[in-house]
């Protein structure tokens, strides 16, 4: 009995040790980013490196937040990511309803296309998008970015929403239709309100993808007043001749929306994510 207990304790310590090594691997770079953002630029490469500097300051944050150009990157990212999220949810709700509640010829093919779209490399699309967006007069505009981001948010949103609607009993929306309501009413009055948990998971994921998107934001915009946060971080790398503390501050500020969304909706999000990604 005693040896068994001891063996259990040994296993527990081994697992804890393993998990701590993993946590260091995953977390230390993030801690280092945070630590650097509070340093002065002169201290960034001090020897020996210190986790908490003597001259702890918020100067790097103040520099970013006091700079109109940098703030503009944030505003742009919010405009684009929120628009993409709202539009994606709207289109995905309609499509998911069609897939979940109707049977129609070509259903199989349409579904196959939606699944395949997810695998098309962005680099393949960026060249024709460039031509297309310029031809449509959408180069360096919000609509250009919003539309192109949707090609990567939409398929996943549709697959996840369809799976979610499939879990809701048909009797819910059918019952109001029997009373004479249209399918449109049934969708928005009955199905959508009870799908809020699913919509949140899809919305958070959509927002993340758009907020983090880099290639199209780089290629389809030209002027600083249209750039988004990821491009802003890169521009900071060139402009300010390696003000590492400011780059780290900008990185942290640029990650806050996604981190907050994740922490708030952790449970729902991970559940939705894995059910979609592992099986989709």
């Amino acid at each position, binding site marked *: 009995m005693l040896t068994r207990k001891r063996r259990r304790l040994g296993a527990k310590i081994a697992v804890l040790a393993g998990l701590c090594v993993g946590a260091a691997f995953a977390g230390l770079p993030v801690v280092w980013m945070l630590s650097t953002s509070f340093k002065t630029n002169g201290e960034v490469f001090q020897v020996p490196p210190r986790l908490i500097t003597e001259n702890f300051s918020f100067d790097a944050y103040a520099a970013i937040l006091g700079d109109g150009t940098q703030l503009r990157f944030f505003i742009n990212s919010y405009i684009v990511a929120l628009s993409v999220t709202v539009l994606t949810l709207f289109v995905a709700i309609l499509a998911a309803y069609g897939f979940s509640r109707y049977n129609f010829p070509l259903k199989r093919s349409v579904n196959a296309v939606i699944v395949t779209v997810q695998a098309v490399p962005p680099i393949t699309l960026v060249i024709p998008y460039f*031509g297309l967006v310029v031809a449509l007069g959408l180069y360096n505009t919000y609509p250009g970015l919003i539309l192109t981001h949707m090609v990567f948010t939409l398929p996943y949103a549709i697959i996840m929403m369809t799976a979610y609607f499939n879990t809701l009993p048909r009797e819910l929306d059918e019952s109001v239709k029997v009373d004479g309501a249209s399918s449109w009413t049934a969708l928005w009055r009955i199905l959508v309100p009870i799908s809020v948990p699913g919509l949140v998971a899809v919305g958070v994921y959509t927002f993340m993808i758009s907020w983090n998107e880099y290639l199209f934001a780089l290629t389809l915009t030209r002027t600083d007043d249209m750039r988004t946060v990821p491009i802003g971080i890169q521009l900071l790398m060139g402009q300010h001749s390696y003000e590492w503390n400011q780059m780290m501050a900008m990185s942290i500020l640029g990650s806050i929306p996604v981190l907050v969304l994740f922490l708030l909706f952790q449970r729902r999000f991970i559940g939705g994510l894995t059910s979609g990604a592992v099986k989709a």
Partner: protein
Amino acid sequence: MGRADRAARPRNKETSMETAKLDPAASPGAAKSASESSAGRRRRTRPFPVQRVVPYGYLSPTLILIFVLMIIPIAMVVSYSFKDNVIVEQNPVFAGLANYTTVLTDPDFLAALKNTFVFITVSTVAHLGLGLAFATMLNTPLLGGVTKAIFRIVYILPWLFTVAVIAVIWRLMLDPSGVVNYILTTIGVMREQVSWLSEPNTALWALTFINIWAGFPFFMISILAGLQGISPILYEAASVDGASTFRQFRNVTIPQLKPVLLSMAVLDLIWTSQQFALIWMTTGGGPLNATEMLSTYTYKQAFSSYEFATASAAAVIVLLLTMVLAFFYVRLQKER
């Protein structure tokens, strides 16, 4: 309308099954019964005309977007790849396969192909290995729920940062006078500082390492979901038979996880081969093409050299290679 809906009602049950069969996200149990009811469907599907248009109404925004954002652009890039001086010239000339020959005989392209292969295979193996290791540890009954929740949040951190941030963090840490070199020289692993990202023989490995760091949380979470789906009865039966923890892992966990692991592997190959931002912001493909990938090669052809025609040919080749992987992915999904 009400009548038509009522008439359509018995069909709807099958609709859900049909969806389940098409949509791999639905439960596997529902998929099985779909084939059984398909015969019944044929008999009863003669829907009311209006009703027949309705689903297309709901799908029309999606169909329009996919057509504009996917079908047209792919047709465009394919046609670009057979012409010369596209985008730059008003009237490009037909060039046949010339662009493809140019790309396929370009040593830079071949280097990019080789680098991409190394990058995606090493990343995928490491993602699955680390993901499996940490997921197994997080799944242990030895630790309390709160402890595990805290570790899970720490582990998922790298995945939450945008690639631009990841690139900046690692450029700081891998700088010759950065903290990684400091630690490695202090504990005596290395004698002198290495500029990891700007030396041809270390750059690709450093980049792969960063990609492993950035991506493993996703695989860990997915594998964890897979682990939690394995019935405890299997483990009970194994331990009654006297199987050790290791044997249980090899003979229960791995076979049960196999479908998840295979799908994740293919998915990772697809995603990693598409990685652009990380490479662009850390090494830009250098030094001396050491980290040139298919994505950076294509991007440079288009937006640095303005050779949109050869870039399009390269883009089509990348598309074809990806579609081979996507084909395996879809097949794996169907088998499950």
